[in-house]
């Protein structure tokens, strides 16, 4: 399956990440860097980031991926914006 042309491969991965029952992520970016697929974006937990990589590796075992997915920070704000 990973012999798909790049356009179809990216679409297949995006649909996997969105429609798979364990992931449901729509905000992951995918870029090809030479022969490596670089994953970007942010998710809510390290467990979700790891599951994304696990799912891609399980479905496309010959793909080399680099995971640059971050965990969105959840600290309290230090500023208020006055709306006018």
């Amino acid at each position, binding site marked *: 399956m990973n012999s798909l042309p790049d356009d179809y491969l990216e679409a297949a991965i995006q649909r996997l990440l969105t429609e798979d029952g364990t992931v449901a992520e729509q*905000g992951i970016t995918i870029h090809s860097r030479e022969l490596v697929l670089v994953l970007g974006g942010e998710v809510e937990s390290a467990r979700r980031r790891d599951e994304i990589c696990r799912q891609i590796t399980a479905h496309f075992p010959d793909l080399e991926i680099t995971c640059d997915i971050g965990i*969105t920070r959840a*600290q309290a*704000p230090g*500023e*208020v*914006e006055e709306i006018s």
Partner: protein
Amino acid sequence: MIRIAAVGDVHVDADVVGRYRPALEQLSDVADVLLVAGDLTRHGTVAEAGSFATEFGGLEVPVVVVLGNHDHQSDQQAEVAGVLADAGITVLEGTSVVLDLHGHRLGVAGVKGFGGGFAGACASAFGEREMKSFVGTTEQAADKLGAALRTTECDALVALTHYAPVPETLAGEPLEIYPFLGSYLLGQAIDSAPTALALHGHAHHGSERGRTAGGVPVRNVAHPVIRQAYNVYQLLSQDVEAGLVGV
């Protein structure tokens, strides 16, 4: 003065419970109400709604939410809304609520909304039944939002949606998916009333600030955009509460 804390797209499941809570425990020091702009859960299950209620419920301030597309994934949106209501969280869908906050009446009208795109590149209710249904869904949502906004009597009026009402707060997203991220019809509804602020989520790669054609400030509070537990916006005031720095 009314201070509104807002966030969207928190996608809570059991693995997220506890991440927001330290910041939420401080919320009543800096805000009078918390608005959440949809995508409360990952798959819209009753169990995930319970996790959201655990994380975002029981605060010292009122919590008002709309559902997002993720909250519809399991076709259990009614049950999800029920779990939230049981936890004391107000769920809006084409409806409004008025909160008395320190003598000021804050009106919040909310709807999930839907897509369709923006002026110059928007869908029309024409042709296939599926296309008419797509655009019709947005038209109905916008009509309900507009009616709720126009009939809410208050001192400060806020529109809360999941989908975006303007394209400016989508900047950063691929242009090709704008029609799936929001609709000008929501903006038009917001402009049909004296709305002071419009809040939405859904666009994780979008931008925070925009304005409707009618001049209403719009803020995209999707969690990956604001990158903190919530933002705080202040209405009806000359002052900034001690402890927070005005920007």
